[in-house]
């Protein structure tokens, strides 16, 4: 790369921008909340396909059944609808057959029930709990891995960047009222892995350059290292995004939320490795001396 970009001059601006977005995300999650799907809220989901029926017909049949909160929307191709019914006590054993029978009887159409899911209140709260544990555990595991491989300053920096990615991704889901289900948790965990991957590549170079040029300060080292690895950062983001876009556009409705979360995560994760994880090293006052103590550990 001939044209070196002066990243460190933009760090302050980027950090203010990140902080604002981070706070907005937290506020939205606190006050608007996340739109949990039945995996985490409990309830019934039915995907059906039928010719010549519309959402309002389905809605009126279901409303006559006194099911509580009912949500019907078009889903994918013509004639496909997605029904979501709120959980009412623990009567899940019968509710599905009642809804199916009622719809088949009242709507004069051949209905193909393509997907039926029911999650009880106990299971949904367990799933939510284990989702939160999984994300927390992955953050802690990353913290320790980087701590072992680098120094504590690096592991703090990368964890702050990861936290930033997870919160903002979920914040955008809250702002856009997109559904959070099991596959979104999988996406968030993958984002954690991907963002970490990106951060590690830059950190690795920072460590190497700190050893090589002990005259330069950390900002200059960060600049140099980001530029050194920039081509790789861009190429890998592009290939990953190409694959994800392909899933987003062609992979069908079920994978849409998942691939959207991943696309967001890759973009935010790439940004954060450069603009959050790297300035954090300056914040934690990393110099070439930081590495000296444990020099022998670094190069295996």
């Amino acid at each position, binding site marked *: 790369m001939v044209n070196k970009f002066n990243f460190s001059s933009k760090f302050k601006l980027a950090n203010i921008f990140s902080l604002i977005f981070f706070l907005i995300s937290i506020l939205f999650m606190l006050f608007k909340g996340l739109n949990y799907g039945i995996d985490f809220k409990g309830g019934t989901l039915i*995907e059906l396909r039928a010719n010549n029926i519309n959402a309002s017909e389905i809605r009126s049949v279901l409303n006559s059944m006194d099911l509580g909160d009912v949500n019907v929307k078009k889903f994918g191709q013509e004639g496909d609808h997605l029904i979501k019914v709120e959980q009412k006590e623990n009567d*899940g*054993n019968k509710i*599905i057959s009642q809804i199916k029978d009622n719809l088949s009887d009242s709507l004069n159409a051949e209905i*193909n*029930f*393509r*997907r*039926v*899911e*029911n*999650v*009880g209140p*106990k*299971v949904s709260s367990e799933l939510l709990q*284990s*989702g939160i544990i*999984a994300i927390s*555990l*992955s953050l802690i*595991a*990353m913290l320790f*891995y980087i701590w072992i*491989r680098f120094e504590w300053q690096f592991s703090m920096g990368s964890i702050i960047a990861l936290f930033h990615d997870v919160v903002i991704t979920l914040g955008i889901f809250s702002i856009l009222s997109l559904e959070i289900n*099991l*596959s979104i*948790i*999988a996406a968030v*965990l*993958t984002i*954690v*892995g*991907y963002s*970490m*991957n990106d951060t*590690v*590549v830059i950190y*690795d*170079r920072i460590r190497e350059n700190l050893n090589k040029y002990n005259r330069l300060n950390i900002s200059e080292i960060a600049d140099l290292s980001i530029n*050194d*690895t920039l*081509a*790789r950062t861009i*190429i*890998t983001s592009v*290939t*990953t995004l*190409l*694959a*994800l876009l*392909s*899933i987003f*556009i*062609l*992979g*069908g409705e*079920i*994978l849409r939320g*998942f*691939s959207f979360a991943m696309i967001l995560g890759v973009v935010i994760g790439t940004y954060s490795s450069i603009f959050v994880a790297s300035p954090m090293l300056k914040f934690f006052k990393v110099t070439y001396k930081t590495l000296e103590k444990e020099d022998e550990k670094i190069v295996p």
Partner: protein
Amino acid sequence: MLNFSKINTFIIYLILFIVSLFASLNFQKKDNLYIDKKINLGLDLQGGSYLLLEINSDTLIQKKIQDKVIPIKRLFRENNINYSNFKINKQSLFVNIRDIDKFDLLFKSRNNNLINPYIDNYRSFELEYKKISNDQIEIAFSKFGLLTINNSALKQSIEIVRRRIDDVGTKEPTILQRGEKRILIELPGLKDPERIKNLLGKTAQLNFRLVSENSEFGTDKLISENGEELNVSKRIIMSGESLIDAQPNISNQNNEPTVSFTLDRLGAQKFGRATTDNVGKRLAIVLDGEIVSAPSINEAITSGNGMISGNFSFQEATDLALLLRSGALPTPLLVVEERTVGPDLGEDSIKSGTLSLIVGFILVILFMLYKYKIFGLIANTALIVNLLMLVGILTILEATLTLPGIAGIILTVGMAVDANVLIFERIREELKTEKSIIHAFDTGYAKAKITVLDANITTLIAAIILFSFGSGPVKGFAITLGIGIITTLFTAYFLARHLTSLVVLNSKKNDIKI
């Protein structure tokens, strides 16, 4: 890093050959005679039903504690312990006794203690008591006593669930214990689980009890099949446990579907005696607390064969016979999670998953060719082999492929090139300062090695956590993502490096660009 010994090269390609061989098993039309391994399709791809059932042992525990009442009272009497105020409250017994020390000694005896057996595995008694006031004690099951009851109820339930499902005849059902209270059932290809849910929703506790004339003490008021209110004695003449067979039938007299049953020897004796003594009275056949029918006893039935009629449709008679054959569940089962995917949605998912895989793959390949030319070709070869290995390893593990699993493969395609990109970019840098091309490639590979490893291990950690916490489809994603990382490392550091070495070592000095 560019030197490969003959033996190394041989091992690399041997591994590739074997894994590809396994991958190819999936594309054979006929079953292979020698190795029968294939990637399984998850329920979300082939269609089918997933059910999670939970046992509720509350009523069972109440019943078990009631069973302790008589033996405990006998213990008091036989040992001259004065007691008063004996009460049952849900899952515990309350009693006032003076001589608690004497009781303690007997209660905690390990010698042939039939009332309160010592459970060796847990080093604990089945029951425990605590003093509530000076002379009142509360007796209840100990923690391990409850655990024992729960475990045996769960084991028994799984056995009966399996019998019922096998009897219905669905193909290749999976029935597994999940945790301490749950049973996981997967029924591939099943379009509508309602019938199975109905069959599993009944405990099928069958009792034969006499109908008494008046509502004296010890009767229950039950509604018969044709709406009349009957006083049914609480005393059970015979229960479903004595049944050895039950079959649906069409009755000769009125062409109605009925269920005929056969009793074991002991049951036949009991039933014979009861029917002999009570000719003329009515016998209520009670299933899960509801009367199926209450026929009059016309004559003594001593053969051990009987018949239940009760306005059944033939399907109902078939299901009742099935339930009676499979035996009663010790506790009711509740469906706490259910997911059913129809076969056509599964097919659509396979189609869209495959399409996005192919398109994503082609996009990445074209991009790499454009970016790295000849080395792009190497990266792409590595990518193709990577996919092949991924499929091969999934086959060896007989893993389950789900829709998110396909997404994991596509993601692997996107991320797999990263290892080669890291290496190639590093070599580019080295080429700027290094005069010897071979040396530049060598140091490029060596220096990138740690970074590649670090970067991939982080994703692997995420995949492992996802695997241990995720369920069903999400687990499938974790599997493909995790294995994808391993195959990526292998192809980048062995195959691509070997191919690179062939290109570099066989070309003239200055014509290599990356």
